């Protein structure tokens, strides 16, 4: 038996393919939305991977440093370093800000990492060119997505930093590329007041007899030094020894340091379940709406195509074609439309993914799931047309 659906498609292939392309663009948008979500999750995981930490020690009762602000003294690092099971501990600061790059602004996450010894958690990984920060001040390593090149100078607050190295896939959970500075520089950038504020602060100190006792100017100088400097960090990243259990080490730090500690699994849950949860729900809503729109479009197209063939269907039924054969023809056309749509959508999504400002991750498993969903949607969408075809009375071919 010949394929009636195939012949019908070949007969009007231009219209069919154009319809498929239109549907494909919609499917491409749907796949891209899924890719945006996957990209967000991947960014979050990349953030955790790139920090190379097993534990995140943050201000007590906060979800810091990524989901909530967290501030703790740099000094907390030393007792943690001394605890059993801890291999390395390093303070780190995170600050998302706009920095100028030529005549454009770039949104970056400025990361302050301890550069004293190589391999400390928080330091930039995946260097693709240049070198690590080796000087105490005014050097930076940037992610390639910032657009900076080696030798460029980036202005952060009042200071300029020379880009000495470039990394890739070093992004915040929001997808902003990272700019690494030494911890001291980053603390300055994060906590330093502007000149007017410092002048006013010094005037207030000088006017306060308790902070500026007559005959003892060293007190005021000491107060000013304390007020203008800052040794806080947003988190202490900890790596553990190979034989240590992260939960046990985390419990010890919580007990003795009265700080909040997250393991990798807990931090991943915070990022995925809390930080990007709303975005994920937003994307899920888009996916549902796009799926419904796709189903409605397929149903409408297949129904219109079927209604346009009512006379032929009546003739086919009159000359003895089974309902099953006609239903299969309609279903095949719907599936064919879905197949073209999926192929076009997959190609389109792959082509335009690099142009998205945020990372779009198109997973093969999502594509397979998307293909199954498209086929299911097309199958369901063809029911209406099949029902209309089954209702066609063969007597309509005779007329009268």
């Amino acid at each position, binding site marked *: 038996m010949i394929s009636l659906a195939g*012949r019908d498609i070949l007969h009007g292939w231009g219209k069919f393919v154009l319809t498929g392309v239109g549907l494909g663009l919609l499917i491409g948008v749907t796949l891209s939305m899924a890719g945006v979500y996957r990209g967000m999750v991947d960014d979050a995981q990349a953030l955790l991977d790139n920090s190379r930490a097993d534990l995140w020690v943050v201000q007590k009762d906060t979800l810091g440093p990524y989901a909530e602000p967290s501030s703790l003294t740099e000094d907390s690092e030393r007792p943690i370093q001394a605890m059993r099971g801890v291999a390395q501990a390093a303070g780190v600061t995170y600050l998302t800000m706009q920095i100028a790059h030529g005549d454009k602004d770039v949104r970056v996450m400025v990361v302050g990492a301890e550069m004293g010894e190589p391999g400390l958690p928080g330091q930039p990984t995946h260097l693709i060119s240049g070198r690590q920060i080796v000087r105490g001040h005014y050097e930076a390593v940037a992610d390639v997505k910032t657009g900076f090149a080696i030798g460029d100078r980036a202005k952060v607050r009042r200071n300029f930093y020379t880009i000495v190295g470039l990394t890739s896939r070093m992004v915040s959970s929001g997808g902003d590329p990272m700019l690494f500075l030494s911890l001291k520089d980053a603390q300055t950038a994060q906590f330093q007041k502007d000149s007017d504020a410092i002048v006013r602060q010094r005037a207030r100190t000088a006017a306060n007899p308790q902070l500026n006792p007559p005959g003892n100017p060293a007190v005021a100088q000491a107060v000013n030094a304390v007020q203008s400097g800052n040794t806080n960090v947003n988190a202490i990243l900890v790596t553990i020894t190979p034989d240590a259990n992260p939960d046990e080490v985390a419990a010890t730090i919580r007990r003795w340091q009265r700080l909040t500690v997250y393991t990798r699994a807990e931090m991943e849950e915070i990022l995925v379940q809390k930080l990007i949860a709303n975005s994920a729900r937003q994307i899920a809503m888009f996916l549902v709406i796009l799926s419904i729109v796709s189903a409605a479009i397929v149903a409408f197209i297949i129904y219109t195509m079927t209604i346009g063939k009512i006379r032929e269907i009546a003739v086919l039924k009159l000359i*003895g074609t089974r309902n099953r*054969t006609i239903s299969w023809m309609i279903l095949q056309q719907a599936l064919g439309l879905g197949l073209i749509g999926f192929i076009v959508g997959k190609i389109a999504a792959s082509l335009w993914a690099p142009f998205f400002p945020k990372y779009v991750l198109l997973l093969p498993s999502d594509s397979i799931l998307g293909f199954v969903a498209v086929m299911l949607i097309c199958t369901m969408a063809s029911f209406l047309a099949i029902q209309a075809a089954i209702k066609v009375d063969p007597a309509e071919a005779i007329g009268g």
Partner: protein
Amino acid sequence: MAEGITLENVVKTYGSGETAVHALRGVDMAVAKGEVVGLIGPSGSGKSTLLKCLGAVIEPTSGKMTIGDQCIYDNGWKVRDLRALRRDMIGFIFQAPYLIPFLDVTDNVALLPMLAGKPNAEARRLARDLLDALDVGHRAAAMPSQLSGGEQQRVAIARALINRPPVILADEPTAPLDGQRALAVVGLLNDMARQFDTAIIIVTHDEKIIPTFKRLYNIRDGRTVEEVQGKAA
């Protein structure tokens, strides 16, 4: 002469009670194999209803219908698979050819034997032989939209004949044709009826072709009156 189709006291009533419409009030009809008869009647006389009953599209309310030697309806009893009956025992020719626009000429004709389970190659060979017999073999690979009206009607006739049905029902097959072409189509149907030993019933209003029938059934108010004419095709 063997009977192609026989109707005995066929009644068709739509609805019931006071609103009942008696479309057929006891139709008797017999058409032998190889014979072509005309079925005429004014609008609303029951022609279409009779055609639908003959075509096993609707069931009569009562009466008996036989195709060849097979009873297909007998006062409430009917053949179980009317679809297969239509496919294997009844050929249809419509006012317009109603060819399937997305199948080429060969496959339009070969579709029926394919539906009946014949292999594609054999069905296409049968179709091409028949198209040759109807002088449209040279258009076998064309699409219906590429054919003239006359060629389309010949392909429709080939489609009706392909399964060698005992009966062919033609619903005003000459309506869109001019006088000469209409007479040619009737002549062709007469040839085919003889060649394939098929009973052909032609429903028509066409004054040009009515005189060509040896026998006519004139239907009025749901009853048929048989008329025998002197002139034949």
